[in-house]
C-alpha cells in the first residue's frame, strides 16, 4: 500500500521548489516553450518520480518499472527537469532544451532520451498509448503500473474518449490517468473555449474510478494514487486541480503564459521581459504563499 510520511512530504515540497528554479532558468534559456503547465505539474511529477513509481534511472528499460506516459507533450520541461534531478541525465543538459542536436526536444521523443516511454505532443494520443501499454502488461502478467499525465485541454480530442471507452471495457485497473485541471488552454479558459464540466460525471459514465484532489498537495496526490491502486474493477482517473503557472506570481491563473517562457511576454502584472527570470526566481512561492506546507 502506498503511504507517505510527513518528513517525506516536506522533503518533496523542498525538492519541488528546487525543481521550479531549474525549470524557470531552463525555459528562459530556451527562449521558447511552455510555462504554465510545467510549473503547475511540479508536485505531480515530483510525487511520481520521487515517491510513487518503481523505476531505476540508471536502467531506464528495467522490465519491472512502472510506466509514465505523457500525453500533453508540451509540458515536457517539467518531466525533463524532474528526470535530471532523479538521475536520468546530467542537470547541465537542461540548458540544451529545444536547441539543435539536443536530446531534450521541444516535444519529447521516444528514443532520443532514455527514460521516455513515448513520443508526445499531438494531443490525446498519450492516453491511447497508455491503454495499449496497460493491456500488453496485463497480457504478460506484469505487476507494473501505467500512469498517464494529460492536460485538461486535450480532453477535447475525440481519441481521449475512444481510449476511455477501451479502458472501461477492458477494466484496465493497472492504469491511472492524472489530469492537470488548470482550466486553461492556448486561446483562453477551457470552459469558455469548449466546456468540459461535469468532468467527474463524464469519466464515471465511462466506467472510471474518479477522484479529485488539490494538485499541489503532495499528500493528497499520493493518497489518491494509492487509492486508485486498490480499485481492482476499473481504471482510475485523478482530476488534479492546479493553478496554471503555480509558483510564479505574475504567471498564476493567466492563460497567456500557457505557451510563453519567461522573457517572451509582457502582461499588465509582469515585470519587463529582461527582468522576468530574476523576478520569478526571487518571488518564487516556495513553501510559503499559496502552497504553504502544513508542516512549517
Amino acid at each position: 500500500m502506498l503511504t507517505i510520511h510527513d518528513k517525506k512530504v516536506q522533503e518533496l515540497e523542498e525538492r519541488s521548489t528546487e525543481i521550479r528554479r531549474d525549470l524557470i532558468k531552463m525555459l528562459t534559456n530556451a527562449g521558447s516553450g511552455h510555462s504554465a503547465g510545467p510549473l503547475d505539474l511540479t508536485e505531480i511529477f515530483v510525487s511520481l518520480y520521487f515517491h510513487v513509481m518503481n523505476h531505476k534511472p540508471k536502467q531506464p528499460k528495467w522490465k519491472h518499472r512502472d510506466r509514465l506516459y505523457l500525453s500533453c507533450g508540451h509540458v515536457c520541461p517539467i518531466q525533463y527537469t524532474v528526470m535530471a534531478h532523479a538521475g536520468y541525465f546530467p542537470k547541465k543538459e537542461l540548458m540544451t532544451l529545444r536547441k539543435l542536436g539536443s536530446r531534450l526536444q521541444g516535444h519529447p521523443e521516444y528514443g532520443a532520451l532514455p527514460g521516455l516511454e513515448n513520443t508526445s505532443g499531438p494531443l490525446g494520443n498519450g492516453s491511447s498509448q497508455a491503454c495499449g501499454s496497460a493491456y500488453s502488461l496485463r497480457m504478460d502478467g506484469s505487476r507494473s503500473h501505467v500512469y498517464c499525465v494529460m492536460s485538461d485541454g486535450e480532453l477535447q480530442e475525440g481519441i481521449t474518449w475512444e481510449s476511455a471507452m477501451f479502458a472501461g471495457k477492458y477494466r484496465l485497473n493497472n492504469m491511472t490517468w492524472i489530469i492537470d485541471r488548470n482550466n486553461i488552454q492556448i486561446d483562453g479558459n477551457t470552459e469558455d473555449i469548449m466546456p468540459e464540466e461535469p468532468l467527474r460525471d463524464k469519466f464515471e459514465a465511462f466506467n472510471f474510478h474518479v477522484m479529485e484532489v488539490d494538485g499541489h498537495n503532495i499528500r493528497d496526490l499520493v493518497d489518491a494514487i494509492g487509492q486508485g491502486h486498490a480499485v481492482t474493477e476499473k481504471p482510475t482517473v485523478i482530476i488534479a486541480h492546479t493553478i496554471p503557472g503555480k509558483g510564479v506570481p505574475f504567471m498564476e491563473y493567466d492563460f497567456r503564459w500557457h505557451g510563453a517562457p519567461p522573457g517572451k511576454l509582457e502582461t499588465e502584472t509582469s515585470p519587463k521581459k529582461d527582468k522576468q527570470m530574476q523576478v520569478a526566481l526571487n518571488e518564487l512561492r516556495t513553501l510559503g504563499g499559496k502552497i504553504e506546507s502544513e508542516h512549517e
Partner: protein
Amino acid sequence: MAKAKTISAHLSPATYRENIKKVPTRNGYGDGVVEAGEKNEKIVVLCCDLTESTRNKKFKETFPDRFIQMGIAEQSLAGIAGGLALEGKIPFISSYAAFSPGRNWEQIRLVACIQNQNIKIIGAHAGVSVGPDGATHQMLEDIAITRVLPNMTVLAPSDYLETKRAVLAAAELKGPVYIRFARSASPTFTTAKTPFKIGRAEILKDGSDVAIIGCGPLVHEALMAAKLLKEKGVDAMVVNSHTIKPLDHKTIAAVAKKCGAVVTVEEAQCTGGLGGAVAESLAKNQPTPMRFIGVHDQFGTSGTPDELIKEFELDRTAIAKAALEVIELK
C-alpha cells in the same frame, strides 16, 4: 546502370486462361496472419467491428487471447497499437483503408512512424473494385498518404498468394508496414515459385517495347494487356512492383532503359500513388516517357467491380491503349 533481368518470373500456367481461379486478396491476409501468429506469439490483431469482412475471424478463433476488439474507433486502434508495440507486441491493426490509414493518419504518423514501431496497418477494401458501396468506402488515396511517411513500408500485393506472403514477410520486418488489399475476388496467378521479396520489383513477363509497371490485383490486367499487345506485334514487359516503398529504383530504371517507355497501373490515385512514385524515381534516374493508368483526381462511385474497372479505364484494353500511345513518344 544495372541491366534488366531477362528471365520472366514463374507464374501459374492458368495465368492467361479465362477460367483462372479467383480469390479475394483479403483472404490472403486472413490466412497469412494466422500463419504468422503461429510462428510468433507476439503478434496481436486489433479489429474495428469488421471481423468477418477484414478476414480476422480465423485469427480470432485460433488466438482468442491475442484478438482485441476495438469497436468502431480507428484513432484509438492506432494509438493503442502504439502502446502494445512499445511493450514488444507486433500489432496488426485492421479496418477498411478509408478509415485506417484514412481517419487515423495522424496517430499512425506519431505512434508507428515517428516512434518507428513494429505496427502493421492492414487496409482492406482499397480501390474502386470495392464496388456497390461507392465513393466513401473505395479508398484511393491510401498509397499517397502512407508512402509520404518516413520509416513506412508500403505494399500492394497482387493476388491471394502474394498477399499471404506479404503478410508473413511484413511480420518478419521490423518497423511500420502498410498493406492494402481489395474486396472482390481476383485471379491467383502467382505461385510458391514466383519470387517475392519486400523492396524488389519482379519482372513477370520480359519484353522490350514498353514496360508496364503495376501493383495490386491489376497486375493481372497488365499481363492480359501484354497478351493483347503481342497480337498487335508489340513486345511489352510486365513488372510487379508490389512494394511501393521502398521502391526498387534499380529495377525500375533498368526496365525503363531497356524499353524506353513506361505505363504504370494501379487502382488508386495516380497522384502520389505508384505512378507518382515511379515518375519521381525515373525523373531522377532514367527520364522516360510515361502514361498513368489509375484514378485521376476523382472519387469512385457505385457499380459492380467489373463495371467500375472499365468505367475508370483500368482494364486491359485501357492499359494496351496507353502502351501504344507512350510508345509513340519514344
